[in-house]
């Protein structure tokens, strides 16, 4: 194996600039997925059946088709969906956000159901309205329990974001691939990209542990 990183060294800053692009997509998509996931999970446990059906259908579709397909449908279909061509970057955030919402909604639903029923009874007995009860009593406890699962989802999101390459977003993956094509050496830049992704995931993992420890202080 003859590894030679010297030839791609000048392109290192170019590849590293992809971190910002990847992070931005992941952060925005994660936020979108989380907020939409909460709403969908509340639909799923709602006593209004239609809302539950809607949320279930949503989850079924986004979980039942490939993510790369969803990404391409949103990007290439945007002129027909929205009436104009959207930026690849926007398509990426939308696709990942909508997709992870399906998974996150299931995680949060399980988290809510795992909170002792006595908690909602105690809140109800105090005259606390449903919305405040969910926001202040149930969801904080649910989130604490599902933090590891949520972290998993965000890690998956970070890695899966590499498929935005297929619609031409200049993320880590695409930059590494381009450098490879440019220098006729793919192995080294791809290894480098792998290292960058790995370090990002490790950072996320540590971050998750810190948050988890802080949330467990009350126990």
């Amino acid at each position, binding site marked *: 194996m003859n590894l030679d990183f010297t030839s791609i060294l000048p392109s290192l800053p170019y590849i590293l600039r992809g971190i910002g692009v990847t992070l931005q997509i992941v952060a925005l998509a994660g936020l979108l997925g989380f907020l939409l996931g909460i709403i969908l999970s509340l639909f799923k446990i709602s006593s209004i059946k239609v809302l539950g059906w809607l949320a279930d259908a949503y989850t079924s579709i986004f979980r039942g088709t490939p993510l790369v397909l969803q990404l391409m449908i949103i990007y290439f279909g945007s002129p027909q969906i929205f009436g104009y061509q959207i930026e690849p970057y926007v398509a990426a955030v939308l696709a990942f956000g909508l997709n992870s919402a399906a998974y996150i909604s299931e995680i949060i639903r399980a988290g809510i159901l795992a909170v*002792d029923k*006595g*908690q909602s*009874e*105690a*809140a*109800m*007995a*105090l*005259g*606390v*309205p449903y919305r*405040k009860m969910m926001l*202040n*009593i149930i969801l*904080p*406890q649910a989130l*604490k329990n599902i933090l590891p699962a949520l972290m998993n989802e965000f890690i998956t999101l970070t890695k899966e974001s590499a498929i935005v390459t297929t619609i031409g977003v200049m993320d880590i993956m695409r930059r590494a691939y381009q450098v490879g094509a440019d220098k006729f050496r793919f192995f080294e830049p791809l290894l480098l990209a792998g290292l960058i992704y790995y370090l990002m995931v490790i950072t996320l993992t540590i971050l998750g542990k810190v948050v988890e420890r802080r949330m467990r*202080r*009350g*126990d």
Partner: protein
Amino acid sequence: MIKIENLHKQFGKLEVLKGITTTIKEGEVVAIIGPSGSGKSTFLRCINLLEKPTNGRIFIGEQDITDKKTNIMKVRQNVGMVFQHFHLFPHKSVLENLTYAPMKVKGQSKQEAEKIGLGLLAKVGLSSKANEYPGRLSGGQKQRVAIARALAMQPEVMLFDEPTSALDPEMVKEVLDVMKSLAHTGMTMAIVTHEMGFAREVADRVLFLDGGVLVEDAPPSEFFSNPTSDRAKDFLQKML
């Protein structure tokens, strides 16, 4: 005053309450006793509509709380409840447990709510625990906090659902003492309990339920020395 008329409750095919009629006067302390499965807890939980009665009416003051137009949330603000398993909010400190509902539901300022909260903690003897989390408290302490939390809403009626049943024996007294002093303040109280000594000493009236039917309704002096029904006699024999 709470007036209960012909209260029925069914869970599916199971009829838990079979037409209960009684009145709890203002300032009265009523002990609800009976064998397990007799419907005591369901009866209590109907009074703040944690269970929706299948039939019959419940008046708190002038208000028919079983009326569809009644705002249940408003009713519950006025009826405090203490559970067997405390159900404190584990992610909130003891003081936050007490101030949460008054601030979020009644719109009290933080200052006001904390002042009332600290006053109540002093009354239940837990001033020093204001900033602890519930997870650090013993069962008896948790239940005293739960009583204080219910009182923080300044309710007119307090419901207790087997408040000492989940406690270690040595912690039962500290909770009963708090309830006793609460009874002396003239609070209207309905207590589902297995503590016969407490019922005899503190209650003004005993309701004996069996099979979803109110079998006896008498002052404790009468009920404990001269129960009229065979079922009550049998029950007391096993308990005392």
